[in-house]
C-alpha cells in the first residue's frame, strides 16, 4: 500500500533526488580529499626558497656530476633567485624558471638578454653561451620532474653540470611543480600599463632643510627621467641601441611623498591606508625623526622594496628582506668604537663610562658598545643613564670622582646632540678621551672648545672629505645644470645614488615587474654603479642589505669641525 503511494512520487522526484545526492556527495568528497589531491604550494615554496623538503630534511642530490650534497643551501633560490628570473655570475648564466617561462616553449627576448649580451663584463665563454642558446619545447610537469631529477630537458639535452640533480619524492616534486606554475607569473602591485608608482615616507618633525634637500633632488630626478621616458614613448620608431625592444618596459614614474602623522603609533595604519588607496612598487629614500622600524616592518609585511632610507638606526635583528640601507648607522659606529678601543696598545685598565639616555638612538648603540668590549679585561664598562642635561652633569661628577682608573667616556647624545657640546668641557675634565658618534660632530656648527679638541674622537662612517671620487663630479654637474641647490651634499648625493640604482633596476627588469627581481638586480649591481663619493665603498651581494660596512675614527684638525683627520685605517667591525 505504501509502495503504491510512493512509487509515483519516486518516479517524479527520484532523478532529481539522485542528482542532489550525487551533488552533495561530490561536494563532501571534494572538501575531504582536497587536502590530499591538491599539491601544497607552501611546501613547494619551502623547497624552492629554503631547501627543506616535506619531511623537514635538507635537499639531497648531486652537482657538478659527482659532488653529492645534503645541504639546504643548495636550494633553487640560491641560483635561480627568489624571483625565479635567474642570474649571471662568475661567467655562468642561470636560466629563469618562472611559471610563464618554464611552461611555454623557450623564447629569445633580446630585451631580457640585453644586459647580459651588452652590459655585463663577462668573459668570452659566457658571451658565446649566451649566443648559442637553443630552442626547447614547453616543460610539462613530467618533463620538468625529469629535468630536476635526471638533468635532461624536453629537447633531450643534458642540463649544465652546474644544475644539481635532486632526489625528491613524488609529493615534494608535485608541491614544487605547483609552486613553479605560479612563480612570478604576474606583475607585483604598484605598476600598471603606463605608470610605476613610487613613494617616499617622511615623518613629522623632520628638519626642513634636510627634507627639502632630499625631496628637491628627487623631484628633479623624476622630472627629468619622465621627460626622457615620454620622449621615448612619443617616438617609438626612433630606436638607437635597440630602444624599441624596450618599449613595453617604459613606465612613467609617479612619485608621491607620504607624510606621516604626529603620533608614531598611528604610522602603521596611515601607511596601510595610503597603500590601500594606491599601492606602490617601491619606496625610495625617506626619513623620520625617530624610529624607522614601523616603516621597515610595513615593507617586510607587504613585501615592498624600501630603498635606502635615511636613518641612523636601521632595525637590527628584525627580519630584513625588502629594505636596503646605506649602513648600519649608530650600531656600526658603536662597533667601530669598540674595535678602536680594543686596538689600543696600552695595557693599563681603564673605565669606559657609557653615557646614554633611554631613547633608542642612544641606548641601542650604547648596548652594542658594551657588547663589543665584552671580554676585554682592560676595560670596565660603566653605564651612565640620563634623562636631562642637568642629570647628566650631576651623575657624571659623582661617578667620575669615584673612579680610580683613567676614564674614557663614550657619549651617545641622541636628541641632545646639539646640547652636548656645552657639556664636553666638564666631561673632559675627568676623562682622558671622549668618544662621540658622527651626528654629534655634524650637529655642532659652533666650534668645540679649543682646549679639549685633542681629547675628542668621533666615529665617522663616511668617506673623508679629502678623498677623490670621480663620480662626485658627475653628480655635482647634474645638480648644477638643473639649478638644484646643494645644501646638504652627502644627503643629496646619496639620494641620487639610490634613485640611480632604482632607475637602472627598473630598466633591467624590463617588463617583469617583480619586486624580488628588482632587489636582486640592485644586490648585483650596487658595487659598480656610480659611487658619488659619500662612502669609500658601496657594495651589496645576494642577501646583503647594508651597502657600506665600516667607519673611521677621526679627530678635529685645528679645532675646525669642518676639518677632520682619521686616526687609523677604515675599520670594518
Amino acid at each position: 500500500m505504501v509502495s503504491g503511494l510512493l512509487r509515483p512520487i519516486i518516479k517524479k522526484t527520484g532523478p532529481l533526488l539522485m542528482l542532489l545526492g550525487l551533488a552533495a556527495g561530490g561536494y563532501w568528497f571534494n572538501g575531504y580529499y582536497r587536502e590530499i589531491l591538491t599539491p601544497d604550494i607552501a611546501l613547494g615554496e619551502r623547497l624552492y626558497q629554503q631547501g627543506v623538503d616535506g619531511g623537514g630534511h635538507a635537499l639531497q642530490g648531486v652537482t657538478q656530476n659527482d659532488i653529492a650534497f645534503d645541504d639546504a643551501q643548495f636550494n633553487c633560490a640560491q641560483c635561480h633567485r627568489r624571483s625565479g628570473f635567474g642570474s649571471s655570475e662568475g661567467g655562468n648564466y642561470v636560466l629563469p624558471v618562472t611559471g610563464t617561462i618554464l611552461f611555454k616553449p623557450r623564447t629569445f627576448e633580446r630585451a631580457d638578454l640585453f644586459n647580459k649580451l651588452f652590459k655585463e663584463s663577462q668573459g668570452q665563454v659566457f658571451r658565446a653561451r649566451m649566443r648559442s642558446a637553443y630552442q626547447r619545447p614547453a616543460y610539462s610537469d613530467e618533463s620538468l620532474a625529469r629535468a630536476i631529477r635526471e638533468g635532461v630537458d624536453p629537447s633531450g639535452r643534458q642540463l649544465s653540470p652546474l644544475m644539481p640533480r635532486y632526489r625528491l619524492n613524488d609529493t615534494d616534486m608535485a608541491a614544487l611543480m605547483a609552486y613553479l606554475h605560479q612563480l612570478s607569473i604576474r606583475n607585483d602591485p604598484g605598476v600598471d600599463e603606463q605608470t610605476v608608482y613610487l613613494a617616499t615616507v617622511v615623518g613629522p618633525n623632520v628638519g626642513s632643510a634636510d627634507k627639502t634637500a632630499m625631496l628637491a633632488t628627487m623631484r628633479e630626478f623624476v622630472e627629468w627621467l619622465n621627460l626622457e621616458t615620454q620622449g621615448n614613448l612619443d617616438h617609438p620608431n626612433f630606436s638607437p641601441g635597440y630602444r624599441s625592444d624596450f618599449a613595453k618596459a617604459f613606465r612613467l614614474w609617479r612619485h608621491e611623498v607620504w607624510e606621516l602623522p604626529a603620533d608614531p603609533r598611528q604610522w602603521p595604519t596611515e601607511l596601510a591606508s595610503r597603500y590601500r588607496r594606491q599601492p606602490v612598487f617601491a619606496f625610495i629614500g625617506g626619513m623620520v625623526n625617530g624610529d624607522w622600524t614601523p616603516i621597515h616592518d610595513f615593507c617586510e609585511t607587504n613585501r615592498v622594496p624600501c630603498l635606502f632610507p635615511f636613518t641612523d638606526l636601521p632595525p637590527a635583528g628584525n627580519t630584513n628582506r625588502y629594505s636596503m640601507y646605506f649602513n648600519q648607522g649608530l650600531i656600526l659606529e658603536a662597533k667601530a668604537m669598540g674595535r678602536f678601543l680594543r686596538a689600543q696598545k696600552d695595557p693599563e685598565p681603564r673605565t669606559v663610562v657609557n653615557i646614554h639616555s633611554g631613547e633608542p638612538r642612544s641606548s641601542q648603540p650604547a648596548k652594542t658598545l658594551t657588547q663589543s668590549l665584552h671580554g676585554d679585561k682592560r676595560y670596565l664598562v660603566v653605564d651612565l643613564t640620563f634623562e636631562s642635561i642637568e642629570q647628566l652633569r650631576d651623575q657624571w661628577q659623582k661617578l667620575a670622582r669615584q673612579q680610580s682608573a683613567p676614564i674614557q667616556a663614550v657619549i651617545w647624545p641622541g636628541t641632545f646632540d646639539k646640547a652636548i657640546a656645552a657639556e664636553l668641557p666638564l666631561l673632559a675634565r675627568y676623562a682622558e678621551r671622549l668618544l662621540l658618534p658622527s651626528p654629534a660632530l655634524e650637529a655642532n656648527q659652533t666650534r668645540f672648545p679649543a682646549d679639549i679638541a685633542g681629547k675628542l674622537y668621533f666615529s665617522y662612517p663616511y668617506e673623508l672629505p679629502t678623498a677623490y671620487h670621480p663620480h662626485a663630479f658627475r653628480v655635482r654637474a647634474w645638480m648644477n645644470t638643473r639649478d638644484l641647490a646643494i645644501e646638504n651634499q652627502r644627503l643629496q648625493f646619496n639620494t641620487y645614488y639610490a634613485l640611480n640604482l632604482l632607475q637602472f633596476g627598473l630598466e633591467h627588469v624590463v617588463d617583469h615587474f617583480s619586486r624580488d627581481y628588482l632587489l636582486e638586480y640592485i644586490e648585483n649591481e650596487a658595487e659598480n654603479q656610480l659611487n658619488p663619493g659619500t662612502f669609500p665603498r658601496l657594495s651589496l651581494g645576494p642577501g646583503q642589505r647594508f651597502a657600506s660596512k665600516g667607519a673611521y675614527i677621526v679627530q678635529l684638525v685645528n679645532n675646525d669641525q669642518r676639518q677632520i683627520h682619521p686616526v687609523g685605517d677604515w675599520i670594518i667591525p
Partner: protein
Amino acid sequence: MNLSTKRLAGICLGLGFCLPARSGGIDQAWTLGAPEPAASASGPSSARKYQLGEAQYQAPDVGLIDADGGGVALRPFLAAEGPVLLQFVFVTCSTVCPLLSASLSSAQTELNALSGGKHRLISISIDPEQDTPEQLRDYAKRFKAGGNWHFLTGPPDDIKAVLQAFDANYSSGNKMYHKPLTFMRRSPDAVWRRIDGLLGKQDLIAEYRRTMGLSD
C-alpha cells in the same frame, strides 16, 4: 626567357642559396650543437669543461686575517712547504662559490690520503668588508672544512693586490663578475697551475694528481 635559360637561372639561384649554407653560414643558426652531448656520462672521459694554464704568480707582501681573527702574512704563508690549492670566493655568493668550495669539500678525504695531510686548502674572500672572520667560520662549517683548510679575509686594498698578483681581477671591480678559479701548486718553488671553470670531485682529484706528477 626560353626554358633552358630559366633552368640555368634556377640552378644558379639554387646554388646561390645553398653554397653559402654549405660553408656553414646560414645553417649554423639552426643546427647549433647541444651544449653537452646527450649521452655524456660523468667521469674523466667526458669533455673537460674548464681551462688550464700555468704561471709564476708572486704573492704580494700583505697581511690578511684568518677565520679566527689572527693575522696571516700572506707571502710566508704561501711559501711554506707542501702543496697548496687556492680559490677566491665570497660568502654571500649564490652560484659559483658554493660549487667551488663544494668541490674542495668533497675531495678533502682523498686529498688527505694522497698528500698524507701535508697539503693546504686556502679560500680567500673577495668581499672582505662583508666577510668578517665570523662569516668565514660559518662558511667553513657549512663546507665541513678540515684543519688544513684556511679561510682568509683582510683589508680591501690588500685583497685587491692579491687578486692582481694572481691575474684574477674581474671587470668593473664588481665581485659578481669574478671567475671560477682554482690554483694549485706542488711546492713553493713550482709553477702555479691555473684552472678556470667549475670542477667536479673527480676532476679536482685528477688535476691534483697531475699537479703532483702522480700517474692518473
